[in-house]
């Protein structure tokens, strides 16, 4: 898939999450689209989270499981009546398993224009190192 900017965007349904565990509060739960790529020194995760502000975004990391959870306030004012609703608004939730090769205390998160950029630096020892052998 190329990001050729000449192509037209198509509308996609938001993916709903089917989990075994029910939520305590009712509302739709969506799986945000993410891009994950890695370079030599870090892994970067980009997630589309429109409508989520930093106060409502929770990034949880425990037992090598990274959980992204974002709340979106319902957009309608009290007096508004719906005329055409093409997309639902609801929480975003997604989990990933991280490998041990991530320096978990140096993770950086930036949320801008509804896109989260999570930078996960790799631990030093994940980089290959040649070991010199001295003749003894």
């Amino acid at each position, binding site marked *: *898939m190329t990001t*050729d900017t000449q192509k*037209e965007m198509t509308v996609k*349904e938001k993916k709903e999450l089917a989990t075994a565990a029910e939520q305590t509060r009712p509302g739709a739960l969506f799986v945000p689209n993410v891009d994950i790529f890695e370079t030599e020194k870090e892994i970067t995760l980009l997630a589309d989270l429109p409508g989520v502000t930093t106060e409502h975004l929770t990034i949880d990391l425990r037992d090598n499981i990274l959980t992204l959870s974002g709340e979106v306030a319902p957009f309608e004012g009290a007096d508004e009546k719906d005329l055409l609703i093409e997309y639902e608004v609801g929480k975003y939730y997604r989990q990933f398993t991280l490998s041990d090769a991530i320096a978990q205390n140096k993770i950086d998160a930036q949320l801008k*224009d509804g896109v989260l950029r999570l930078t996960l630096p790799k631990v030093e020892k994940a980089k290959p190192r040649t070991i010199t052998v001295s003749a003894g």
Partner: protein
Amino acid sequence: MFFPRVFGVPSFGSMRPFEELSRMRRQMDRMMDSFMEPQLQGLRSGVFPAVNLTEDDNHFYLRAELPGVKAEALDIQATGRNITIVGERKLDTEDATARYHRREREGGRFSRALAMPKEIDADRVEARMQNGVLTLKVPKAESAKPRRIAIGN
């Protein structure tokens, strides 16, 4: 679908095949449901972006989710009763050495026109882009606002 029910018997290998089949049947049911969903959603134009249109007495509100699209990349026009939203979503160019594990986000151009149900005041449309959500506040023309009629006696 026939599958045997046995109580209190340790699971032997022969009991498992029916488990598989009933699990497959449930998966098929779920797949059928997800195919049916789009039709049930109703009036979809299929054009990006998906919008939500609401109204109150004085305004129409048009909202669209456009994460990562900056205000400068958007061109919003109001003509007569029509609102057009044209723009481009550019994904950040990353390091050339990056190797992708997942690629779900899309970029590209989009262009959508929407006709408002009633006459609008095209000169006073307000647009706001916040957290990746575009909100257009479209005032209704005076003639389109509801009139409360008092009942005399």
